């Protein structure tokens, strides 16, 4: 029996879809059977980020409304053998096309087949959000170090607590260590102080995310990407492994990097 994890945030643009794509891919790389579910009906993105857009035949609404069987709608990602599947959202419908009960039933069915069901939640707190969290066993709340995103994360955590979500963890995305150091950006402690939930990971801002997203290749596949490494660590923590937070200081000069290579310094 697998686990359903919803990736949510309240605010848009903080990296829910990127997080879902990367965590799903990283878990699949670690030989877990994973299905990504795009719950953002009407504004689907996950298929694009995964580079699977042109393979969509049936979608989530087709499954819940009985047009096709679940198996027919699942898209297999060829890069990961039998480990990674995607259930795309419908693009021509809206959030009201599915009910929380239908989502719950869908999640239950997927749980039998997969180790991890990762649901990409739409922004907002309306029906789309309620659909996405309906069948979830745990939630990962994504936020960025901005007051507005933290405020929305707080609201979302309140709603998750009210709906008795068993486990709520926080992922801080797009942190810029240099700005934090200068005091221009909220640091991790400030955010944890307000939100008072467990931290599952911190992902640094990374230009390569943009490139990876446009190419349809999640950053975790790039072994040199810092954000990819951070997402791989989060994926390990999801499975219960203890992985320390990676140091955020990165902007090292050439000499520092040489020293590091030679075993001196930090």
């Amino acid at each position, binding site marked *: 029996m697998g686990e359903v994890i919803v990736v949510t945030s309240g605010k848009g643009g903080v990296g829910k879809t990127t997080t879902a794509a990367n965590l799903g891919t990283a878990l699949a790389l670690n030989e877990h059977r994973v299905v990504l579910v795009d719950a953002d009906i009407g504004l689907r993105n996950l298929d694009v980020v995964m580079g699977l857009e042109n393979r969509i035949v049936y979608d989530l609404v087709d499954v819940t409304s009985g047009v096709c069987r679940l198996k027919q709608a699942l898209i297999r990602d060829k890069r990961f053998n039998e480990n990674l599947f995607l259930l795309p959202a419908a693009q021509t419908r809206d959030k009201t096309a599915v009910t929380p009960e239908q989502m719950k039933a869908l999640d239950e069915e997927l749980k039998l087949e997969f180790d991890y069901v990762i649901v990409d939640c739409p922004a907002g707190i309306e029906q789309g959000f309620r659909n996405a969290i309906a069948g979830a066993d745990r939630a990962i709340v994504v936020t960025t170090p901005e007051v507005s995103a933290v*405020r*929305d994360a*707080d*609201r979302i*955590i*309140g*709603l998750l*607590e009210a709906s008795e979500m068993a486990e709520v963890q926080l992922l801080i995305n797009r942190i810029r260590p240099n700005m934090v150091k200068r005091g221009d950006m909220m640091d991790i402690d400030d955010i944890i*102080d*307000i939100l*008072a939930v467990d931290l599952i990971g911190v992902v640094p801002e990374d230009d390569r995310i943009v490139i990876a997203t446009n190419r349809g290749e999640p950053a975790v596949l790039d072994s040199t990407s810092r954000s990819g490494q951070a997402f791989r660590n989060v994926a390990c923590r999801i499975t219960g492994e203890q992985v320390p937070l990676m140091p955020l200081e990165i902007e090292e000069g050439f000499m520092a990097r040489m020293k590091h290579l030679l075993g001196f310094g930090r």
Partner: protein
Amino acid sequence: MVREEAVFKGTRDGLLIILDDHSEFKQVLDMLKAKLEAARGFFQGAQVIIDSGNRKLTGKQKKTLSKLINSQTGLTLKGFSDDKIAETAITKEKPETKPKEAEEQNLFQVSFGQVSPLPVMFINRNLRCGQRVKFAGHVVVTGDVNPGAEIVAHGNVVVIGTLRGLVHAGVSGDQKAFVAAFRLEPSQLRIAGVFTRSPDEDAKCLNGRPEIARLRDGNIVVEQSSTNQTLSLVQRG
């Protein structure tokens, strides 16, 4: 509880005098006279609304009452509750609404029996953005009150944690209501009819001691307190 012929209550719309509707009018009048006499000058400038409960006041009785009120220095009679002037103020006062409101919030609540005339609601978790608690009594939060959260209480509000949200204590006009927190950094504070907001500069709580905000001469004043003081104030209500 001893029944009183005339009960005084401060509300946002002015001073509400609730007359007991089981006693003789004469008795009520005498009591009211005595009370007003005793409190001479205390209600300076107050607008008075008289709530006669179920009693139907005759024109003559109303005249007698208005004469009595207006003869007191600084008091002006605004009207009678049956004139519908103070309808909103009075419905809020009614204790029957208490359990309903508490149920709505679906929160753990314990009443403090005889310790304080107002009931106390305990909230044993953080109040997060978008969550609102309205209660006809005191509110104690063992946790944080985050920005975007709201507490509206008829009595006092005590936060055993950090208060960053909005609090309105003494919402029905209780000038003695206070707000206390381990770290008092509210976005906005309201006590009775007075509103205030945090200064624009980053005014973080300086030394980690609990602070109390209360009304002094019509302004909200924040002062430090020791934990013992805070607790004894809660007990006294």
